[in-house]
């Protein structure tokens, strides 16, 4: 590291003060990278989980019902004699990837709507933003329960139910950034050179707001995961016997006093996953803000 650093006025600052600032940046970046690696490992593990589960997560066995954790069944067995550890691993794929799919779709739809509203304004902006206001004024989980109840219980329907409202935060954020960006001089210059709106939006507006949008998306992962688990817990998510953390908590609830591990294992998995993604999101946010 350099002993000195120059600032705008060209005067040398004490090396100690600059080092602290740089050290802080480095720490933030390092934290984000480490968390990113952990998240990546979790994603890879969950994606390939069905290939290395120790037991068949769907095979019932009446002779092994409600067995406590052991060498054979690390997290014990459930009321149908199924390996809870295998089901938690199998459930990771469902829970995490369903969350990512929903976040990505919400991100794309919300950002697109936000950019259109922010750039064109007028009646389109008014209509779409009032719809957004209405959706934001409704309790998201209650609305999701109502929509999932109408559509019926399945993972796809649960994602639709949560997705009805989840795009709104992206739309709001994208709109405000677009409104700021579209008045910048270089956008006006683009217009003067005859660039089309599509060209301006894709090549000049979108790249300048994608950073904060991605940060917002990473922060939403934890919340979305809890929403999906919540709907599954209520029987409005995956259809049995599919392994999904929320539905596993629900299935294990009647056996809480006899086999608490059937509830604790998926509940702790939800807790760890949500904390990990939230922590990662915050780290990315810190780095982005600092940049």
């Amino acid at each position, binding site marked *: 590291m350099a002993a000195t650093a120059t600032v705008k006025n060209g005067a040398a600052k004490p090396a100690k003060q600059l080092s602290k600032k740089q050290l802080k940046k480095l720490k933030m970046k390092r934290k984000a990278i480490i968390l990113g690696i952990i998240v990546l490992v979790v994603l890879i593990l969950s994606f390939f989980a069905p290939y290395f589960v120790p037991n068949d997560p769907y095979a019932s066995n009446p002779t092994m019902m409600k067995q406590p954790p052991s060498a054979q069944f690390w997290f014990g067995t459930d*009321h149908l004699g199924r390996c809870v550890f295998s089901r938690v691993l199998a459930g990771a794929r469902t829970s995490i990837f369903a969350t990512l799919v929903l976040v990505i779709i919400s991100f794309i739809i919300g950002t697109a709507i936000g950019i259109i509203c922010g750039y064109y304004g007028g009646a389109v902006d008014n209509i779409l933003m009032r719809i957004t206001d209405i959706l934001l004024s409704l309790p998201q989980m209650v609305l999701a329960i109502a929509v999932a109840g109408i559509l019926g219980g399945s993972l796809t329907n649960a994602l639709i139910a949560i997705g009805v409202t989840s795009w709104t935060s992206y739309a709001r954020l994208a709109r405000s950034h677009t409104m700021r960006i579209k008045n910048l001089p270089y956008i006006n210059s683009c217009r003067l050179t005859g660039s089309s709106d599509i060209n301006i939006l894709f090549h000049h507006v979108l790249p300048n707001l994608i950073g904060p949008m991605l940060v917002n998306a990473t922060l939403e992962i934890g919340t979305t995961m809890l929403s999906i688990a919540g709907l599954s817990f209520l029987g409005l998510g995956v259809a049995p016997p599919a392994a999904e953390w929320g539905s596993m908590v629900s299935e294990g609830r*009647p056996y*809480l*006093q006899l086999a608490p591990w059937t509830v604790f294992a998926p*509940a702790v998995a939800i807790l760890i996953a949500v904390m990990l993604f*939230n922590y990662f999101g915050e780290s990315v946010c810190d780095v982005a803000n600092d940049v």
Partner: protein
Amino acid sequence: MKKKWFKRTLGLMMVATVLLTGCGGGSETTEGGDGASTSTTSASDNDFKSVETFAYGSLDPHVDYYSWHSQKYGLTETLYRINDDMQLEPWLAESATTDESGQVTTVVLKDGVCFSNGTPLTSEMVKRNFERLIEKNNRFLYMADWTITPVDDKTFTIDTGAPYPTIVNDLATPELCMLDLDATTDFVSNPIATGPFKVETFVPEGDITLVRNDNYWGGEVICDSVTFYSMSDDQSKLMAMQNGEIDAYDNITSSDIELFSQDPDTYDLHSVPMQMRGYAFMNSERLPESVRQAITLMIDREAIASFMPGMFTATATIFDTDTDYGVAQPPATDVDKARAVLEADGYVLTNGVYMKDGQPLKVTLACYASRNIDTIAVLLQEQLNAFGIQAEIALKEDPDGTYMTDRDYEIGFYRSITDKTGDPITFLEFAVQSSGYGNVAGFGNEETDALIQQYRYEMDEAKRNELANEIMQQYYDSYTILVLNCYNRNTVMRKGVTNFNENNPYEFYGVSAATTPAN
């Protein structure tokens, strides 16, 4: 930013704490089973408390199925009742005698029977109760053809217009209970009836409290009051029992049976086979006969039952096989034959899945989460998948509002009391007859309808049994129904509680004058 992160983490920790605290509470309750009485909040030592699973908005026993609840509470009573051995015995009536023609029955009421307001029950009032039931409940429209004639205050005749062999069974149906139609001003919240208890407070779709009927005709009533809390969640009921908030409840789950049986010093467990069957309709409009037959032949009912010990017993028939009308049976399990049936219809087992015309054989199991039906569906799904039929589960909120109405299903689970009054007619009219509510699998036909009609008026018992078996054999041979199990009525009672009709196979019997609370 740090603050934001801190807030989010704190929020997550709170969620985790709530989750873990909820779980921990359950565990503590188990340990505290012995000390449950310390948290009891009973107002009196002589109050009986239980729970009601279903939320309903009225107590009017002539409407819908509300009488099943009012009779369980000790509010209403019928002319006859079904005892623990499933035999009919007089209750408000002294006797019922049918003449040789089989169409005129003379009923004599017991002396001293009166309503909770002290007004005696007369044959004229019985007649008016018949009329009100016919007016209020479509299921009893057939009684409109009957002529009921009071002979004197305590005697009346019923002329059914044609031989009607199950007249006494009908007198035991909970809906045909006796109300004081003159004195009752609020049928929804406070019907005046003959039971050992009368309504004190009733919250529609909520709790109900009844107090002792001091004018009870049947002798001393032990409890001062009876309360049924509205509680649909099994876990809430379990914890209410463990906390000492309630004295007894029935229809406990398989896991609760296991839990209560671990503490025999605190709880008494009673189990009696009900006449409630769990079964699945197989839609003949969606599934070819070969597939329905193969599923009937491959199912292992015992394996399914083994996962929920005490909850039910495996059975393949709608009626008990030890009854004279329960002789008809579906084919026994034979997996090789099941495969032969499918292969004869052109299905080929390829990579563990039966294929025909390049398409895998798939079925959808429509089910709902009640009385372990969703768990049964999961286990059947596993058996079907192992056999080579790809099965998926469609979990519905309620069968009656979905596949039982629109018939949009392939295999649809249902449960019902199949032998309500010691006679097969209930199920025959419900599911086998073409106009029945439960005829949702496409079986109903004119030939069987004619047999059911013949059965309805057949007086000779041997001939009736023969007819019942013939009808049911036709039904089983259509492979439109897959009977799975016979539910047990499981009741848990705190030590000291007695006479909650815990040995009666029908859940519409509960509190009586002899019921004693735990204290």
